[in-house]
Each structure stands twice: as C-alpha cells, then as structure tokens.
C-alpha cells in the first residue's frame, strides 16, 4: 500500500500550493500515470479519500489518466506507444522494445475555488 504514502505527498503538494495560487478548496485533481508508475487506480482512489480527510482537498475528485510511453522496437525500428509493460511491437511482434522516458506519476491540472 505505497499508494497511501503517495497520496499523503499529493495532499501535501496541494496544501503547499494553496498559498501561491490563492485557493481555499480543491474540487478536482488530475493525476498522470505512466505504465511504469506501479500505481493501482483503485487503491489510489481509496487512499486519496483517506489522506485528504480534514484537508482543503476533502471531497475532491481524483481523476487518473493513464499516459502511454513512447517505445522503439529494437528489431524493426517501429516507433509506437505502450500502455503497460511486456507489450509486443505492434508491427513485428518483438518484445525487444526500448522505452523512452515514462510519465511517472505527476500531478496535472487541478480545479480549485
């Protein structure tokens, strides 16, 4: 359940940014998740509810967007996208793919009052 510690970090960022961007309440939070981020959306939703309780993000909606990573096939040079690990090349079926930088786990847009 590392999702809970990630959500505590997330709520911490939302609280820190409140002064800078002048908001009192967060309505919606967008999370951009790459295939290598190792985050389970269900656990993330649950953990966010727990971590945001009593904070300015309580009741906010957590939107999880899965962002594919660009991959290059080492056998046929096809450039494509992968949404999860161990995907085969769409053209030649090879698993020898070179992964470009992953979106990781990023806080994107937030909607605030």
């Amino acid at each position, binding site marked *: 359940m590392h999702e809970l*510690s990630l959500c505590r970090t997330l709520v911490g960022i939302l609280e820190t940014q409140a002064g800078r961007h002048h908001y009192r309440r967060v309505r919606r939070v967008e999370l951009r998740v790459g295939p290598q981020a*190792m985050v389970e959306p269900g656990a993330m939703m649950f953990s966010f509810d727990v971590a945001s309780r009593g904070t300015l993000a309580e009741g906010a*909606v957590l939107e*999880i967007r899965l962002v594919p990573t660009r991959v290059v096939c080492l056998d046929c040079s096809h450039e494509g996208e992968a949404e*999860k690990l161990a995907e085969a090349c769409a053209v030649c079926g090879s698993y020898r793919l070179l992964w470009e930088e992953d979106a990781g786990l*990023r806080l994107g847009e937030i*909607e*605030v009052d």
Partner: protein
Amino acid sequence: MCATCGCGGEEGAKHEHHPHAWQHRHGTEGGRVIDLEADLLEANAAFARRNREIFRRSGVLAVNIISSPGSGKTTLLVRTLEALRDRIPMAVIEGDQQSELDAERIRATGVLALQIQTGKSCHLDAHAVAHALEALPIPEQGILWIENVGNLICPALFDLGEGKRVVILSVTEGEDKPRKYPEAFHGADLLLLSKADLLPYVDFSVEQCADFAHRLRPGLEPLLLSAKTGKGMEEWLRWVEEGWLRAKASNRPEKPVVP
C-alpha cells in the same frame, strides 16, 4: 460520478474516455483550473540523486536487492560477504518492517550492518537510505549492499540511488512471477533464480521464466544459483566484482596533469 475514472462528469459520463485525453476539460461550475505539473516522486528522486552522488564520490558500488520474502536474500548476502570480505570493503543496509534479525545475521560475518525498520511501510525509499548513510560508515571504494523489504511490488517504484539492481526469484515461487509483477523485472540489472538445488522437486521452467523476463527487459539473463550447494556462486561473484571494479574505476581521483 463517472464509473471509469471516478471523475465528476455531469449526469454520469457524458465525456469520452480517451486513454490520452488528459487535455480535455470538464464542464465545471466555475472552478479555476491550474496546471501544477508536479512530480509526486520528486521528493524521492531528489534524495536518490544525492545518494548516487555520495556513492560516486566514494567509489562505491551500491546494490539494491529486491525479492519477495523468503527467497533467500539474506542467505545469499551472507555467503557473498564471506567470499569477498577479505578483498573488498563492504557494508549492508537491511530493510524490514520489524526486528534486527537480518542485521544480526550479517554482523555475524564481521561486516557492518545497519537495520532500517520501516514500520508499516512496505519498501525502502531514498530518504531512509540517506539517513542510513549518516549513521553507517560508507565502505570507501567498496560495495554497499541494500537488502530491500521483502516485497516484489512496491520497492520497484523507489529509486534508492543504487548503481545496480538485482532481483531474486526462488524457483519455489514459480516462473510466472515476471508476468505477474513486471515492474521489478523491468528495472533489474540481474535476475537471480535462487534455491536452484530444489529445481528437481518443483515445476519451474527456467526457459519460460527467461522468456517472460526478456519481454520486460531485453537481455536480462537469469542466473541459476544455490547458496546451499554453491551452484552459480562463481558466476554471481564475477558479476559483482566486475560492477565493483567499474564503480571504483569511474571514481578514481583525476591524476594531476604533468606538464
């Protein structure tokens, strides 16, 4: 509320779910939209960079060992320390939720060990390792072993600043684990198949395991190893020494230029 992603689309899910449609904006009742673009793992990444720099300056090879509980991490580590302790300065960071048991086993070999008790947490992070580095004398020009919490899932997400990452899978766990827990294998520099002496008694296909591992990391060759019989130890120690020599060489202080 939308059942797919939990977002608050009006009257259910009128908006379309496109996998890359993070650009779309929801109909809102006047809330302000700010793009924060903050990396949730940045705090860990910053500590990892710091640790990596410490290792580089000290000429230390740091090895992060990841596996599920009971795969034989500590046993392998004890055998490895016994084999190398006379030639290579070494120290060990042990991660467990509770107890000093593993650190005590390591100390019995005469090598310094520091136990991190993670409490409820399921993994080591770079911050915990940074603190451990304050308490544990760094083995200059040597090897720092970091035995992660027994868990094949969460530790994979946290860069500790290590130079090499080793994943251990015991043959009793089954060859399908790379398929089930892909991330640990995707990020590994070496895959050790431990308890190889039990292969005759279990249904474990080394070939299939290698095939799954290759899909996650092309070139990731499994090495069969038994700490009990010594099978594969020679090859493993060669791999370790090669990494150690590289780490040492790349950190050698520059020679003053003689005119």
